[in-house]
């Protein structure tokens, strides 16, 4: 079940990035070859962009993509590191909580006013709804990550190691090439 959700999450994120690239690319083609363009294209692209980032924040927590400074925390033993890890989760929960509230507040206001988006034929609150949704998902993922730190022996932090990941993915490819 959760595997299915993970797969869907990844497909949705990839789709958003691919779609915004292709829409922008097609605008260039349209302008030079067909001498035309769609006025709604830019608005659509920026909404895809906002959705990609705001929906993706919680995905970033799952795959440990968010980077931070761990030089100080590394000075402590595992127990101390876990304590800092939990403090960090609490800080992130505060952040997420404030923004779920702020996001909901804003979307609700726009919903009540009932205005349309500039160029696209949708009410403006629809693209903005990603604000409370994205930060809400972040809170769920943070609770999971916090539970991991408490329950799992090895996990001490939600931070990622960007360089290690870049290398891992590269080595995977290399291995496949060698096959």
């Amino acid at each position, binding site marked *: 079940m959760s595997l299915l959700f993970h797969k869907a999450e990844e497909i949705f994120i990839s789709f*958003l990035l691919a779609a915004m690239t292709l829409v922008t690319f097609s605008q260039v083609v349209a302008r030079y070859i067909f001498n035309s363009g769609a006025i709604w294209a830019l608005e659509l692209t920026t909404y895809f962009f906002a959705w*990609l*980032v705001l929906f*993706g924040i919680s995905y970033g927590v799952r795959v440990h993509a968010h980077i931070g*400074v761990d030089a100080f925390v590394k000075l402590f033993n595992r127990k101390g590191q876990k304590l800092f890890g939990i403090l960090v989760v609490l800080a992130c929960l505060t952040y997420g909580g404030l923004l779920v509230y*702020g996001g909901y507040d804003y979307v609700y*206001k726009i919903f009540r006013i009932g205005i349309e988006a500039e160029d696209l034929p949708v009410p403006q609150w629809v693209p903005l709804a990603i604000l409370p949704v994205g930060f809400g998902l972040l809170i769920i993922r943070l609770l999971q990550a916090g539970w991991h730190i408490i329950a799992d022996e090895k996990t001490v932090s939600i931070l990622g190691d960007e360089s290690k990941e870049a290398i891992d*993915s590269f080595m995977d490819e290399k291995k496949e090439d060698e096959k």
Partner: protein
Amino acid sequence: MAIATLFITLFVLLLIGTPIAVSLGLASLVTILFFSNDSLASIALTLFETMEHYTLLAIPFFILSSAFLSTGGVARRLIRLAIATVGHLRGGLAMASVLACMLFAAVSGSSPATVVAIGSIVIAGMVKAGYSKEFAAGVICNSGTLGILIPPSIVMVVYAAATDVSVGRMFMAGVIPGIIAGVMLMIGIYITARIKNLPSMPRATAAELGEAFKDGIWGLLLIVIILGGIYGGIFTPTEAAAVAAVYAWFIAVFVYRDMGPLKDRDGLGAVNYITVLPQSIFDADIHRTVLEAAKVTIMLLFIIANAMLFAHVLTSERIPQTITNAILDAGLEPWMFLIVVNILLLVAGNFMEPSAILLIMAPILFPIALELGIDPIHLGIIMVVNMEIGLITPPVGLNLFVTAGITGMSILNVVKAALPWLMILLVFLILVTYIPAISTTLPDFVYGPDLSLQ
């Protein structure tokens, strides 16, 4: 008071290991809640509006094109071309690595990506050819930083977004400094090679050089598309980035065939294009590359959005004005101001992600620079070069970690290995700081002098 709260909260959060993005965002939120009347709703909107910034829209496209270039075999061909060009000199393989980094930097916008793409191939090659591992690691770690100086550059896009300088001008401004930095590193290598008697490779024949050039031409064309397209007014930098991403996908899948459905297949006749096109969209390799690019985009833009919020708090507390007045009242000369800028950025570069530093520092430094008559483009290049150095100084030098990862050396050893070459970059920083012409000549020549300054 507000400003102390802002910075102390930020510092404490960073120290305990909070992700950089959340540290910036939460510090801003706390400050706003206690000291200002802004509503939480308007803060949420500020985060959303970051992604409506047309200039920043270029970043995901450049990340995607870098992802296709690194995995799609372009790096390998650029290395071959570089070796054929300078490999026959003393220390030639090391010099070729620098040249390969420069070429890759000219098609991709990120520094760690350059280190991984070029370093993972050439370091092993250099060790096999008789160089010490430390020498190889030091060279790659440093020349990889050219990724953000030679256009296109994600860091320059961020600077342009923060200061409303034209992205095209910034890109043009990076060309000459990038070449100078690369040549300085190569001269350093050549002198070391003479003293230490490092190996050279057999001279490539004209035919081999031609062959290497022909093989690499598809990658090199991207330089023409990006810079030519922006300069020629064919498309905006953001559109250029999207075109680059689609182009990089196209050559990886259809021309070089290093990934996707055509991998290891020869002969066009056997392939039915109608079946290949959908396959190339659902292919596992391609899906993985896009997802990887999306992950980097999310991580970076989450930091940028929160840094924008942080900068917003700084401006609403009128910090830039206060500092500008203090500096002007102190009667600081431009050259003294530039020393301060360099020291400030070098220190900050040790602890933070480059894009975040630019977004926080640019609103503070930019108005002062204007008052003192410093060209915004010149200031931008100074900031970028400082960020380069930040990438190879501990504790948060991303290039150090990446190099340690691909060589299996400890961080400390990589720091030691990078140090001699870091000195060259510091000399380069002084050159760039005090000779504005290095940065401004090309953009002024191409676009004409910046009229907004007069």
